[in-house]
């Protein structure tokens, strides 16, 4: 298409948009209907979910995480007396890159298609307590609760990071 020369009437042709249907996605009531599954993309990198009985607490995700967002937390002892460790993701550091999911040997750590997580201010707290409060609330131990809607799910078998 060649670029026409300038004329006063050409912008006025855009007024026909008045009679077209607006393309707004009315978010709280409607959601995105672009992908095979409604909402976000089928392989969306959202908040983590972790299948706690498949997870062997090997710490591979902790080593690959570029920003030390994952910390292995001891949550008990197994029969041989060795500590059972599970990853805790600090969403104050996580960049949602998905490397931890790529290197997970047992493919237990996955990323769900959920992305809403927020912390509101607490009126009664003073400023100093508030800072700690926010930092604590953003450290989540991923478990099966978000597992209903799996998004990014690769695992070591796909040999993405070798």
């Amino acid at each position, binding site marked *: 298409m060649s670029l026409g020369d300038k004329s006063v009437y050409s912008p006025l042709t855009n007024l026909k948009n008045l009679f077209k249907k607006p393309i707004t996605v009315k978010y709280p009531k409607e*959601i995105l209907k672009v992908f095979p599954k409604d909402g976000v993309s089928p392989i969306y990198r959202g908040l983590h979910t972790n299948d706690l009985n498949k997870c062997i607490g090997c710490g591979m995700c902790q080593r690959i995480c570029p920003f030390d967002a994952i910390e292995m937390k001891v949550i008990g002892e197994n029969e041989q007396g060795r500590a059972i460790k599970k990853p805790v993701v600090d*969403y*104050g550091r996580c960049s949602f890159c998905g490397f931890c999911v790529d290197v997970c040997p047992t493919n237990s750590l996955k990323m769900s298609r959920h992305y809403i*997580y*927020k912390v509101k*201010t607490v*009126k009664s707290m003073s400023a100093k307590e508030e*800072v700690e409060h926010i930092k604590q609330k953003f450290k989540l131990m991923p478990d099966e609760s978000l597992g209903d809607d799996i998004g990014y799910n690769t695992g070591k078998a796909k040999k993405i990071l070798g």
Partner: protein
Amino acid sequence: MEDLKANDKRSYIDNLIDFFRKRSIWMLHYCTGCGAVELPPSMTSRWDIERFGIVPMATPRQADVLLVTGYVSLKTLKRIIKIYEQMPEPKWVLAFGSCTVNGGIYWDSYNTITNLAEYIPVDITVSGCMPRPEAVIDALQTLMEMIQSGEGGAYKKYKENYEYYKKNQDRVLRKTAPILGSSETESIYQEKEGNYET
């Protein structure tokens, strides 16, 4: 208009004023960090937060809510504090992204702060390494509910804990202690009026 019913402890006038404040939040047109690239999609035709009455305004005087989107470098922190103090009451702060909680991906950088709540009171902190437009709209909806129920009062905290915030701000924005001769010079935590005031 169901949210107009006067609940017990707040008079009808308070509810009406909160309804006005809820339905016409004006945000400051200032993109502090990289999260600001998700604001144009939210403000324009596809997600359109103007249907809630949320419009970007040019100056702090006209703005109600300050969106801190993403990381905050030292220079930006100085401007954010100045802008926050210029905004008239009632004002709110939304912190987007992981960089405002625990430093995010620049936690070990020498030029970005780790937690925004140490310097100015934050109403809602949203997770996401750049929250997507739906998360932005969800955060703004939560802010609207907080305003309607009178819960959004973080700006009152700025006055109550002013010396805590001021101490943090001065600690960060004043000159940092030089490492060159750092062995004998006192560390900046002892708050001694050193010879830094050049």
